[in-house]
Every structure is written in structure tokens, then in C-alpha cells.
């Protein structure tokens, strides 16, 4: 039984790859700003960006060799906390096909994997859609 997509004010489609440009940072900044304004937000992630929430990333980054005593939260941890801090206002969807193709099938439990076949339902559930980057 397909689950209905919760309505949101904005759908951010994050399609560009991490570690190439500041796209991921922009998307997280914009999501933060939208949430600060009380908006409901969904983020649909495709391509290499599906790795941002891969379970394999764990909670912390690898040690900084120049400052080994300092711990840094992984990007997956940053996103996880963003989701859990905004229950019923932020939804993070990961394209199942892209995640499988990138070897990122194992995801943190806070995100939801979705088939591309239901993508248009997410667009229709959003007041506005912004398509950010390309796979």
C-alpha cells in the first residue's frame, strides 16, 4: 500500500554530487533558513548525493591528522540531527535506484528510500519545487 506523501511548502531536489561544489552546503543552508521560517520541507536526493546519508559514514568524520584530538560530526550525523530536530516538518527521501547504483543502499534510519516511480507525487505534494544540480 503506497504511503501518502506529507504535504510540504517546498521540495528541494538535491541532485548534484558532494565534494565537487558547495551545492550540498547551499541546500542545507536553504533548508535551515526555510525551517527557521516555520516552513515544511522535503528533500529528495538522487545520484551521488545519496551517499550523504549512507550508514557507512557513521557519526564522525575520519580523524583530522593535523588535529587528531578533535572529533567532527559526519555529514550523515548533521543531516540526521536536522531531521530529528524538525519532526513532521522535514522529510529526507533517498532515491532507491540511485542509492543502490552508488553502493549506498544502507542508509541511516531517519531517511526514507523511495522509488523514482513515485517522484511526481512528491512534486505534487509540494507548494514549490527547486531542482538543485544534476546527477
Amino acid at each position, binding site marked *: 500500500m503506497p504511503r501518502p506523501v506529507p504535504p510540504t511548502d517546498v521540495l528541494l531536489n538535491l541532485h548534484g554530487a558532494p565534494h565537487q561544489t*558547495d*551545492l550540498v552546503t547551499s541546500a542545507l543552508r536553504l533548508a535551515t*533558513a526555510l525551517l527557521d521560517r516555520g516552513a515544511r520541507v522535503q528533500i529528495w536526493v538522487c545520484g551521488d548525493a545519496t551517499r550523504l546519508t549512507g550508514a557507512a559514514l557513521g557519526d564522525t568524520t575520519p580523524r583530522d591528522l593535523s588535529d587528531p584530538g578533535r572529533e567532527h560530526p559526519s555529514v550523515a550525523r548533521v543531516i540526521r540531527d536536522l531531521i530529528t530536530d524538525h519532526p513532521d516538518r522535514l522529510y529526507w527521501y533517498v532515491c532507491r535506484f540511485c542509492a543502490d547504483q552508488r553502493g549506498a543502499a544502507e542508509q541511516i534510519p531517519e531517511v526514507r528510500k523511495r522509488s523514482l516511480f513515485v517522484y511526481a507525487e512528491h512534486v505534487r505534494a509540494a507548494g*514549490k519545487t*527547486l531542482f538543485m544540480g544534476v546527477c
Partner: protein
Amino acid sequence: MTDHLLIETGGPQTGPACERFVGDAVRLAGDGHRVVLFLVENGVTAALPGASPAVETLLRDGGELWVDTFSAAQRALPAADLLPACRMVEMDEVAAELLEPRVRAVWH
């Protein structure tokens, strides 16, 4: 008439792609729509004088030019070195614009 928020992330270093996108903004403005061009990430370099002829055309044609404060600072670009007509903005202002029902946003 539809208000447009056009978001440029690449800047002149991406070659003609940036000029073509800003050209889209010029066309929309010429058609009578309100157009805000928001420069973010490497796109902020398009706000340097002489960097993008299309940006200067857009300003002449009534378009607005917004520049992301964070991205400019990250790229060591002081506001005083950018086109005088540009407005430095925080992401909060972009979020507010995006949430306006009358505004269509396009990311490039």
C-alpha cells in the same frame, strides 16, 4: 506576470553556461517580469565589475542582483569590490522569497 528568482551557482568560470542563464534572466525581465538574480557559491564572481556583460545588461533592464554574503566572504570577495548595484543577502532572505507564492525559482 510571474516573479522569478533565478539562482546562479557557477559564475563566469563555467564558460558560456553562466552568460546563457543570465541571458534567460534578461529575457524574462524584458518580457516585463520581476526578476531577481541570486548569485551563490562560485556564482558570486559574476558580480565583479566586468565579469559578466549579461549581469550588467540585466541591471540596466530593471533586474535585481542579490549576492550571497556567505559565499562572497568564503571566496575572499569584499562587497566593496562588487558591482555597486548588487545587494548582499543572507539565506533567510532567499528563503522568504522562495516561500512567496507568486515567485518561481530556478536553480542553475
